[in-house]
């Protein structure tokens, strides 16, 4: 103790400093253009970012997958980098890595996203490989067969993961069985097993073409003749034209209820509590972002203030809104609260969680909370968008959600204008206490009874 006392008396304390003058920063405005083959290109010069990020969006949505072939978009996305008319699968991977590049492709509800990151000096070569993959993918029988087997091997790993298992169950609960959204994005064992190279090629030919694709290129482009690079690479990709697919309406059953995915012996309960709500096209979006941050954006938000920092039930619980699919005529975001709590405290934690929601509905947010949230959400923008990859990711999100290129830039202005009352209304209507579907992955024998006592709706147990 005496050491500490000495330290305390000898350190000179100063009052909390005032901030300096903020320097202007704006979300970068991309330059939009179209290549001769119809490919839309967004480009954005970011000084100092030596690793260039390229995001390519292919308008091949999951709902376009043929009946019974869930997962074909995923296998197609993966097969793009498994050989072309010029390179075998192994050669293709080797050539890409020789550029120091990473390439990732995955299929989600709006379409397929291909993400390339590469040092700028090797951009032309890497982009040439990506163009080759789009122009002339081999889709060799043996490679597709291998990808199918590999995918089948992955499924048990995903089911074993409590967070992944919870997400699968929530989708199944929320959406009608006829909706593609009710089923796993990357397919089930039954559907994936039926995918072959013919199915992959058919899906590719029906839905992948430059005219409905967009490429976003972000990085330090000093000294790069991007037009020439594009003309030699993605510009050489040809294809016919097609009408864009309409975005189908999204509906969900958010009747308040609880589903326990039984995991005997689990030391924690994974919780995922959600429903669907407005997307970025809705005027309420900025208020919803603000209100959701106040509810569960960080460890000083309302949920963690109680569940973590007061009670210690969890390492952290977050509330978020994640757009599933979005277009000018319709779309939806998943609005959810997720985290894990220790098994014995599952009942008390859910009780507290609902108390937080009820208190929020009854009393609303405070001006101070709103102010902190705006300061954070707007203030972190220059940090968040320091890298080329983060800028490219947001620009491509905007494209796939049919938003204008200046959406993110405008969002910051709209957030700053959003008041406490609007933010409260948005978050309360996003998370109504009687319209939430709760999925718990945990030990049913230990958590069912305490959860039933909370009256959150019917409680059912399904096997893990």
């Amino acid at each position: 103790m005496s050491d500490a006392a000495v330290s305390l008396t000898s350190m000179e304390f100063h009052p909390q400093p005032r901030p300096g003058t903020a320097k202007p920063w704006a979300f970068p405005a991309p330059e939009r253009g179209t290549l001769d083959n119809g490919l839309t290109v967004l480009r954005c010069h970011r000084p100092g970012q030596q690793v260039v990020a390229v995001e390519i969006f292919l308008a091949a949505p999951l709902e376009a997958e043929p009946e019974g072939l869930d997962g074909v978009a995923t296998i197609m996305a993966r097969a793009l980098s498994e050989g072309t008319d010029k390179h075998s699968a192994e050669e293709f991977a080797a050539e890409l890595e020789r550029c120091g590049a990473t390439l990732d492709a995955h299929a989600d509800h709006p379409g397929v996203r291909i993400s390339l990151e590469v040092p700028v000096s090797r951009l032309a070569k890497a982009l040439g490989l990506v163009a080759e993959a789009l122009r002339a993918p081999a889709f060799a029988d043996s490679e597709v067969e291998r990808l199918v087997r590999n995918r089948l091997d992955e499924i048990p790993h995903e089911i074993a993961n409590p967070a992944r298992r919870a997400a699968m169950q929530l989708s199944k609960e929320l959406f009608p069985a006829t909706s593609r959204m009710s089923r796993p994005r990357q397919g089930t064992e039954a559907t994936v097993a039926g995918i072959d190279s013919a199915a992959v090629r058919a899906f590719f030919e029906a839905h992948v073409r430059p005219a409905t694709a967009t490429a976003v290129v972000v990085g330090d482009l000093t000294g790069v003749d991007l037009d020439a690079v594009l003309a030699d690479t993605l510009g050489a990709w040809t294809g016919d034209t097609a009408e864009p697919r309409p975005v189908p309406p999204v509906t969900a059953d958010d009747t308040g209820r609880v589903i326990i995915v039984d995991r005997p012996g689990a030391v924690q309960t994974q919780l995922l509590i959600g429903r669907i709500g407005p997307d970025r096209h809705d005027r309420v979006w900025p208020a919803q972002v603000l209100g959701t941050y106040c509810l569960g954006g960080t460890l000083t938000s309302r949920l963690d203030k109680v569940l973590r920092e007061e009670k210690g039930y969890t390492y952290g619980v977050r509330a978020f809104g994640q757009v599933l699919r979005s277009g000018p005529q319709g779309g939806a975001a998943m609005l959810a609260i997720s985290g894990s709590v220790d098994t014995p405290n599952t009942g008390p934690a859910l009780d507290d969680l609902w108390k937080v929601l009820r208190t929020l509905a009854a009393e609303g947010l405070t001006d101070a909370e709103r102010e902190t949230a705006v300061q954070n959400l707007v203030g972190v923008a220059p940090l968040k968008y320091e890298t080329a990859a983060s800028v490219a990711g947001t620009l491509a999100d905007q494209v796939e959600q049919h938003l204008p290129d200046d959406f993110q830039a405008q969002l910051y202005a709209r957030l700053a204008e959003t008041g406490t009352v609007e933010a409260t209304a948005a978050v309360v209507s996003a998370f109504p206490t009687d319209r939430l579907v709760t999925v718990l992955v945990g030990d049913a024998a230990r958590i069912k009874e305490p959860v039933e006592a909370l009256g959150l709706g019917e409680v059912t147990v399904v096997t893990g």
Partner: protein
Amino acid sequence: MPMGHTATAQAGSGGLTATEHRLANGLRVVLSEDHLTPVAAVCLWYDVGSRHEVEGRTGLAHLFEHLMFQGSKQVQGNGHFELVQGAGGSLNGTTSFERTNYFETMPAHQLELALWLEADRMGSLLAALDDESMENQRDVVKNERRQRYDNVPYGTAFERLTALAYPEGHPYHHTPIGSMADLDAATLEDARNFFRTYYAPNNAVLSVVGDIDPEQTLAWIEKYFGSIPSHDGKQPPRDGTLPETIGGQLREVVVEEVPARALMAAYRLPHDGTRECDAADIALTVLGGGESSRLHNRLVRRDRTAVAAGFGLLRLAGAPSLGWLDVKTSGGVEVPDIESAVDDELARFAAEGPTPEEMERAQAQLEREWLDRLGTVAGRADELCRYAVLFGDPQLALTAVQRVLDVTADEVRAVAQARLRPDNRAVLVYEPAGTDHSEQEEEGADQ
């Protein structure tokens, strides 16, 4: 032609510079200017990690890191988080074997706030530390352990591998998360003593990187940190010296509820900071980094016996580094089939070394990883601290990528030959419970 395939004209520092300073109380300071974006990163490394923990108190360094966010003399409760986030900043802290780091990335005009906050807790944490925050954060950390290790398949693999690879009593035998029993046993007095022992300005390095005025920044640092007294209560960590190789294969078989069999292994490798460690990094990248690596090509593409196969490198300065093999089997494939294929590939690599194309690919991959790390102010601040704390020279961060590019194929082969051997590894095998072991279970039930 070591420079023949570098991605940047100035491979290495990429034009970055850093200056070094030392306050009278021993606090080392590293500053690096970069005005491209109006942000500034503050990073503080304390030279204390789980290797400094004593028996019965594993996990204390990490639990203590949590307590550093629970307020200090002038900062109430969660004020550290609230003030930084309210200023548009992001922040966190992490604990590893060899150090504990704390970092804030701020809009440039809020830099002074981050310095004030770090200084307040460095100098006066004990004014706020109490039983309530201790009990609360103990529960939070136990839930962190459950979430990240105990409640996920293969979650304790890393813990088991390090326990195998570093012998009982070795400072790296246990991982930073610690055991539940030790987390339960930690007392408020333990935490206080930990602070008094390790949280001194002369046991830390502070780096500030980004859109800063170095002169003004240094003046602020002097103002806020300058009067924090130094002290020298710290004992060096227990000796981490081990023979260069294990000298025999160690093995553990775990029967658990996992979705597939797995073969994992930890190879004892050269210390971080040596040329041999960089050579090992390249060897592991050629063998198990990315989709064109030898193990991926053999096990995932050709034999089709694995879902995923790869190698990772855990660089350590105070003990031998670890090369971590991780293979998840496909379908009903048995572990011995995987193991013989791995041995085969490693032996062939040790005999032949990498091809020129493999060298080029591995170096290009490692170079991009470096460009990524140095591409953000926070990444750069962390690397400057790392080289200052572990190797005494922050400038080494700016030339690290060049050292990786200078390594030759012969050096890669040499380290593979010496280290990537069956008698220099700890093997961890996972067998799913209730599949092939049903016979054993029945035997058990009969008895």
